[in-house]
């Protein structure tokens, strides 16, 4: 399957991706990000989502967990860094029941 890549996030973040050849969908706030992501996830198999929208859109992201595609990847933009750690912890908790990476 051939697919394009999209990025959803604030304008400053997505425009640099656009220059690099990724389809950009600017979203100024949480609500428009939700709308945009829902629409974009239909057409693009790979979607990058700016990390600051990952936490508020958790419920929507959960729905993409069932199948292999679409892949929605929250990308670190430097403003907030919590997502990666939270994601790993959540998965570890579910699968192993113990924390093997952060040991807290």
């Amino acid at each position, binding site marked *: *399957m*051939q*697919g*394009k*890549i999209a990025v959803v996030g604030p304008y*400053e*973040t997505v*425009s*640099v*991706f*656009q*220059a*690099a*050849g*990724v389809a950009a969908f600017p979203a100024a706030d949480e609500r428009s990000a939700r709308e945009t992501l829902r629409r974009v996830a239909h057409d693009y*198999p*790979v979607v*990058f989502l700016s990390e600051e929208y990952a936490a508020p859109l958790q419920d929507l992201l959960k729905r993409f*967990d069932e*199948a*292999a*595609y679409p*892949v929605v*990847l929250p*990308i*670190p*933009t*430097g403003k907030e*860094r919590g997502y*990666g750690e939270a*994601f*790993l912890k959540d*998965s*570890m908790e*579910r*699968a*192993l029941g113990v924390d*093997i*990476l952060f040991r807290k």
Partner: protein
Amino acid sequence: MGARRTMARLNVNPTRMELKKLKARLTTAVRGHKLLKDKSDEMVRRFTVLLREDKRLRDEVEDDLAAALKQFALAGALTPPYVQAAAFCMPATAVRADCGTESIMGIDAPKITLNESASSALPYAFSEITSEADGSVRMVAALLPKLLRLAEVEKAVRLLSYEIERNKRRVNALEYVMIPQLEETIKYIRNKLDENERAAIVRLMKVDSLQ
């Protein structure tokens, strides 16, 4: 104790036929349990490998991307927004990805490979935009393969974590419910059959002694 026994026991007739059936079911359950347990072990092993890779990639990407974005913001401050918008809105390279699936322990995980069409040229004239922006765009473009790999790994981690959880439930159901229940019922039927046999012998002896 009596109450617990009746609770764990299956509701079947104590006949030889049932005993045979239950024994077969028990063997299947025990074998299934072993297989699932092995599967679980292997999934956990793969999961930990993927987890570590995810963490490593995320750490790498985090720093690089933050640097690129910062540089880009800096460049943005030097160029009027409309010039920048005009320069970036027509990308010369359209990034395309081959999206396939790869089976990890029977789970379909995404397998993404980047195939960049066209050249790696920047999509605008150099006079329009500062070199900081060039640099940040190049950095982001260079990061793309890594980001795609991270997307792949992260999805696999997600899918695998759910599958491990489900599998664990199956293992537990077999270990703590199915197998004890079957064993209990088999024991019960054996006792019942023995009892019937003894009763029959006693009856025969009784009849014998009466004649």
